């Protein structure tokens, strides 16, 4: 087997095997498990880096075999795949480090890390899936492997959240499956292709295809937390912080958003979707979700719940970008896929740090935490500002590109939505920042723990700082090669100028 076929498989296997090994390890061998985790994460990062370089050079990494009559299992690394794969590889490493610290001294770590690795393997599979069928395969695998993580704590609330999560996502999966099967019946096995498949299609099929499009987007929208079907997301907050981080930044919601990206661009083709008028309603829905999520976030007192609603809002930016016909909109949506991930994971890391170090879960308990935990608070502040869209942070690049894309697509109202959303973001993030830095400590911390020299456990200390650095750098150095922005531009170029 040649290297081009081997690398995608290796990328998958690195975490899959890690999962298997971790499941096999006894609960008590913590060091070994950590080692395996980190090794696998680093290995995957290396593989993804190598593949990214290859894709940049135009190498076609693909492997496929026939799985069922007329359906093949296909892994293929195109530029879009690497965008997502890169994100998950980088953030997996950090989240793993974080999770090791976060779960120190807690039970069931073997189970946790096993499913954690499975979850990442699924994400990698979603990224590298070469056709809709393979995508679905990993998409559902993701659903299943995240469930144990969501209910990890085993409390009644966690179980309730898990139940809702599974109801929503499985329901979405069913709709998605119906859409995929239908599409398969209409058009056969559809590999992802940069230009889509339906530039010229029998007009008699338009009606059915539109219906299929609606099914697919509805199914994917569940995970992406789009408006009417977002209910699971805030509840899933009961999961441990690294899980929330992973769920929100990399895996679950992104899988949904990424799926919509794939469907719009690589299955239907943006031209077809545009001509059929499929984009406009989606844009309205996404815009509504953006505002709705922000508005709901305003009223949340629980820090993680506020972040969750923020995710609902932010992920719809990606979808909004997709619906803006034109390269700039595409770039905006795609780049936000990464930027949102980096920013949101930072926020969740920080929220986890507050919870783990100070026992703080609510926004109004955070008064004066900046002095007690400056590094964490700096990271939080940076990420919050990034979310608002303050330049030169990651969020600004997104907002700028999205705005420019909206204007280029003659959809001026989207700019209004963006600005409004930025204001709302500011309205729910800045008070937190204010509490962190400008208010004195009001009451003793609910449950403080101390770890010697650093403000918190070293495993928890560094990841948010690294992601903060990332979120500054991806914005500051956006035009450089291999930055998210230029990678998204590369994708857009390959998409619009085939």
């Amino acid at each position, binding site marked *: 087997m040649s290297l081009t076929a081997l690398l995608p498989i290796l990328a998958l296997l690195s975490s899959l095997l890690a999962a298997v090994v971790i499941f096999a390890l006894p609960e008590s061998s913590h060091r070994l498990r950590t080692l395996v985790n980190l090794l696998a994460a680093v290995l995957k990062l290396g593989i993804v880096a190598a593949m990214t370089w290859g894709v940049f050079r135009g190498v076609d990494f693909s492997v496929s075999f026939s*799985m069922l009559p007329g359906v093949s299992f296909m892994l293929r690394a195109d530029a879009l795949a690497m965008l997502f794969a890169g994100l998950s590889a980088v953030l997996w490493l950090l989240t793993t480090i974080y999770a090791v610290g976060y779960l120190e001294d807690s039970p*069931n770590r073997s189970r946790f890390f096993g499913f954690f690795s499975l979850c990442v393997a699924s994400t990698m599979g979603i990224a590298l899936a070469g056709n809709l069928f393979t995508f679905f*395969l990993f998409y559902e*695998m993701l659903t299943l492997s995240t469930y144990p993580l969501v209910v990890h704590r085993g409390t009644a609330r966690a179980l309730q959240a898990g*139940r809702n999560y*599974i109801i929503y996502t499985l329901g979405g999966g069913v709709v998605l499956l119906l859409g995929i099967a239908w599409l398969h019946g209409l058009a056969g096995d559809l590999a992802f292709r940069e230009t889509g498949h339906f530039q010229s299609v029998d007009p008699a099929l338009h009606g059915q295809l539109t219906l299929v499009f609606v099914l697919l987007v509805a199914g994917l929208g569940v995970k992406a937390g789009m408006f009417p079907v977002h209910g699971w997301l805030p509840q899933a907050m009961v999961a441990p912080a690294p899980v929330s981080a992973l769920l929100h930044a990399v895996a679950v919601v992104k899988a949904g958003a990424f799926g919509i990206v794939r469907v719009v661009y690589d299955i239907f083709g943006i031209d077809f979707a545009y001509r059929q008028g499929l984009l406009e309603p989606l844009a309205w829905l996404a815009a509504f979700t953006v505002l709705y999520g922000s508005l709901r976030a305003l009223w949340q007192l629980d820090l993680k719940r506020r972040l969750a609603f923020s995710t609902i809002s932010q992920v719809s930016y990606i979808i909004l970008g997709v619906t803006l016909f034109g390269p700039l909109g595409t770039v905006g949506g795609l780049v936000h896929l990464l930027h949102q991930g980096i920013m949101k994971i930072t926020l969740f890391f920080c929220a986890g740090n507050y919870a783990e170090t100070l026992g703080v879960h609510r926004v109004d308990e955070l008064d004066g935490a900046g002095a007690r935990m400056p590094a964490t608070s700096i990271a939080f502040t940076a990420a919050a500002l990034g979310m608002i869209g303050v330049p030169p942070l990651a969020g600004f690049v997104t907002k700028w590109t999205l705005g420019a894309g909206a204007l280029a697509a003659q959809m001026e109202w989207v700019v209004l939505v963006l600005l409004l959303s930025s204001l709302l973001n500011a309205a729910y993030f800045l008070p937190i920042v204010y509490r962190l830095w400008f208010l004195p400590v009001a009451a003793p911390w609910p449950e403080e723990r101390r770890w010697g020299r650093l403000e918190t456990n070293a495993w928890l200390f560094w990841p948010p700082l690294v992601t903060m650095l990332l979120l500054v750098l991806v914005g500051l150095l956006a035009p450089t090669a291999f930055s998210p922005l230029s990678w998204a531009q590369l994708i857009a170029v390959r998409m619009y100028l085939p």
Partner: protein
Amino acid sequence: MAGLLFTPLAWAALSLLLDFRRGRWLSWLGMLIQVLVSLSLWFAVAGGGGFFYALAGWEAPLGIALRVDGLAVSFVLLTAAVATACGVHAGVYLDPGKSWQRYFWPLFWFLWAGLNGVWLGADLFNLYVGLELISLAAVGLVALGGEAAALRAALRYLFAALLGSLAYLLGVALLYGQFGTLSLTGIAGVVGATEPAAALALLLMLAGLALKTALFPLHGWLPPAHGIAKSPVSALLSGLVVKASFYIAARLWLELGDRLGSQLLAQGLGALGAAAVLWGSWRAFRQPYLKQVVAYSSVAQIGYLFLLFPLTYAVAEPVSRLAQQGITLQVISHALAKAAMFLAAGNLILSVRSKRVDALGGVSHFLPFSLFSFGLAGVSLMGMPPTGGFAAKWLLLQASLASGQWWWIAVLLLGGVLAAAYVFRIYRASFLEDSVSDDFYHPPKTLEAIPMILALLALGLGLVAEPVLSVLALPFEVAAGVTAVQP
């Protein structure tokens, strides 16, 4: 070939003479032989194509011929895999101290022999004898131990099985009376389009077999029997035994259904299957006992099988093939997954010392491996990718779409969701952390490994569905004379 038929029977006879412990060693050896023989036959067929094997040197219709085609050998191999797993598990799981356990092995081997007989059978009466062999052995296994509840379940099972067999035999009688042959191929060769008597015969046989397969309104006997038996036995029963009668029904339908069947019959069977899917899943969701959940899940999963009838009747050839492939995959994946599930459930029961679902609280602390196997098997039952269950569902979906019978789509999708509901109910129970009990028994590693292997097989089936299906579609040399392949 001969080894395939001989070994189980001989081992049945031999193991009857030994006690449980020695029988165990003997049986494990026998399983090894069986697996090897099955494999070599499988490879022989995969390489050279299928053939008829005339027993005792007498060809059909005078003698009894075995039909050795890709489907049959695949099921033989499946049986070898599942039965071996159950056998190994049983060897560790069952308590050798109980003196009646010695009868487990001979019954087990007879069951195996009967299954092989059915997979390979091409003679209607021989199939009847094979069915009876299976039924009685199964009843014997259920009744083993002789507690009142087990006896009761065994009796219900026995009566259902006997009635089903007789209905089948009545059909055979009518067919023989009209066509003068017992060979299925022979009958298929001479049967015409409008034969009311033969149609009634087919109806009788299907009804009898449906009863033995526990199709929806006739499923009452299954949950008690499968629920009360020891876990390895339940695994065998749910995984393989019910499939035997379905297999015969399917063969009959595919050979004769296009002429003797009707749209009404086909849709009716499909509708019953659909009802089974929904009702069985719902019942499974409501059961307080773990194994009852799994047993009702069997009722539901069997329902899917009956979608074969509408999806192959009066449809285009490729659609029919899709449906057949889907059903085949469903049979195989359900056999693997359900066996895994029952074995894992047995482990869980062993470790919490209670059969109730709500006693599982906190078990995910201690038994993640068996729980994981259970979950994996559940994933296949739900029809989530990449499992065999999913591959089956996908093919059936495609067949439904292509044949325009969209109403089955709803059943397929809803069935998956309902399956998720009852599987996740178990999961949910096991994740609950507020239980005070810390008293868990850790089953031996072997017990934990076996369901995992089966579940992984079910999982992997989806990935290699295409090669598996291609073996099933191997060319079958009907015209070729008897080519007795010796082991």
